[in-house]
């Protein structure tokens, strides 16, 4: 098992390097001079040259990349142009907020998704299946930013039960798990959970239908096992793949949270990304994308390893 983990780590290393190259290059495919965001338009040529040397833009690209990579490996992601603070601290704070939101959303999505999926799989092709499948298709097809707006319209503007934006009272920048902050997470989490719910529901339905059609289930019933016992067998067979999908969905939510965080002004990494783009804050943009991508890669790796550990059919060499 340990050998497998090491092999996977080795396999993932070139991917990580590739990811870092892309993150680095993103800044350089942007049209316009990167310096134009930092300096006013009427800066003197001398100042421009000074800043260029200071940021290292005058070196050849591969050298810039090597320097940047060296700094990243030591945890230095640069300084935000807009706020002047360290990118690393900003990103980590924001990512923790998003992590909380994404985790809650994934749990909600997985619970409902698994439920609908089981119902659909067990009652295959009957009306319950059609209803549950319809709900899954709706979940997968909904533009989640629009759904957020609709929920805000219903629950904030009309009913005034829940706050429309923010992570806490008085625009607090971090979310704490206490009663005051609870109201703030409900709408964003529900909105975020819809797509994972749809995906997991469809996956579970396919899994359950497939397992129930296998001969060993007939064998179990023939030997007299009660339905609940059969159900437990189905669950243990479906669990590895379902959990793997859940893990991947968590990754997608982490990386793709920008739309919902914009709607709800949730102070997470997506919101930070939005700000970085519009302020042309390139170090912040670079750092945020890198961290999010690496999180995603790590999550994929973890899902892979857990699945291999749990599923006895996969060879461990």
């Amino acid at each position, binding site marked *: 098992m340990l050998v497998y983990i090491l092999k996977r780590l080795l396999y993932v290393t*070139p*991917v*990580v390097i*590739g*990811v870092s190259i*892309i*993150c680095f290059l*993103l*800044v350089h*495919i*942007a*049209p316009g001079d990167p310096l134009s965001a930092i300096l006013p338009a009427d800066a003197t040529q001398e100042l421009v040259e000074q800043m260029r040397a200071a940021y290292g833009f005058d070196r050849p690209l591969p050298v810039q990349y090597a320097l940047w990579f060296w700094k990243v490996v030591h945890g230095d992601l640069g300084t935000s142009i807009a706020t002047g603070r360290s990118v690393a601290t900003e990103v980590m704070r924001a990512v923790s907020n998003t992590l909380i939101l994404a985790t809650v959303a994934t749990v909600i999505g997985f619970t409902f998704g698994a439920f609908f999926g089981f119902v659909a799989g067990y009652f295959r092709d009957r009306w319950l299946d059609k209803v549950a499948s319809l709900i899954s*298709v*709706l979940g*997968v*097809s*909904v*533009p*989640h*930013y*629009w*759904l957020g*707006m*609709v929920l*805000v*319209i219903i629950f904030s*503007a*009309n009913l005034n039960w829940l706050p429309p934006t923010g992570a806490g009272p008085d625009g607090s920048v971090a979310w704490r798990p206490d009663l005051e902050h609870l109201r703030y997470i409900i709408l964003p989490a529900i909105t975020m959970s819809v797509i994972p719910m749809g995906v997991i529901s469809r996956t579970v339905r396919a899994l359950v239908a497939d397992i129930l059609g296998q001969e060993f289930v007939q064998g179990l019933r023939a030997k007299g096992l009660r339905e609940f016992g059969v159900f437990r067998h189905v669950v243990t067979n479906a669990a590895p793949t379902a959990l793997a999908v859940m893990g991947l969905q968590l*990754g*997608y939510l*982490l*990386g*793709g949270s*920008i*739309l919902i965080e*914009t709607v709800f002004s949730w102070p997470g990494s997506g919101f930070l*990304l*939005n700000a*970085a*783009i*519009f302020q042309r804050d390139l170090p912040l*943009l670079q750092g945020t*994308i890198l961290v*999010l*991508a690496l999180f*995603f*890669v790590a999550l*994929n790796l973890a899902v892979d390893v857990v699945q291999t550990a749990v599923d006895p059919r996969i060879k461990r060499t």
Partner: protein
Amino acid sequence: MAVTIDLSRDAPIAPPPYPPTGAEEGRAARGYWAGVGRRVVRDPVALAAALVIIVIVFAAILAPWLGLADPYRGSMLRRLRPIADAVYRLGSDELGRDMLSRLVYGGRLSLLMGVLPVVFAFSAGSAIGIVAGFVGGWVNTAIMRTVDVFYAFPSVLLAIALSGALGAGIFNAIVSLTIVFTPPIARVAESVTTQIRTRDYVEAARVSGAGPLAIIRVHVLGNVLGPIFVYATSLISVSLILASGLSFLGLGSKPPEPEWGLMLNTLRTAIYVQPLVAALPGAMIFITSIAFNLLSDGLRSAMEVR
């Protein structure tokens, strides 16, 4: 004489008059896609979805000839009118422009930004994946690992990162979405091609002395493009939502163009005044996306039946 058993299904019959008359008699050469099409038409859900899409697409194409109001002309006096207003059938937006007209015209841009990237990604991804799958070996490894690097980004993040870097605009949005969708299609293409490459009939074709191009054209393409195409159609709804999402963030189309995502953005502040009107563009995205998903599901079930 030994007892002969007549197994007429396999028994040869009296020789036909020569030269052979070709394939006119006997069942007509049923194309594979004709069979698929027939099965889709018989599926009520998929059929309804297809009709919805056809209506939306035709409305978008024929918009200038449908007798609609000018989607760009606003009126400061008649802003944010509700649905079923005397003048505006579906209300008016924050600049007094007719919502019905803007929704229909908006379909043009939204559909374009949603469908074109998938079309381009299908071409590029299939080419890459089929080559990688057919050639195999280290070429395959090199290509697929490069693809894996892009796969390491969640799609939304990659789309926004690329759009953010390239700048706003419809063209840039289409470019970045194409880049986002090419890796998954390439992966599917490579996987399917690798499976087909090891089939006996491909070996038999190799054994008859055919060159790789002939084998790909005759034996591989026909069997491989079908599954890739179905996968690509399932990506259209995602692309639609992402493209509109980019516009929603201000990274796609720019005002005053009518486009569903952009309209959602500009109408956000209006949710307290005219919530129903503000929600309309998103509803359009929702409906179109559902329709594409249902159609794609229907296609997949139609293709699974052998």
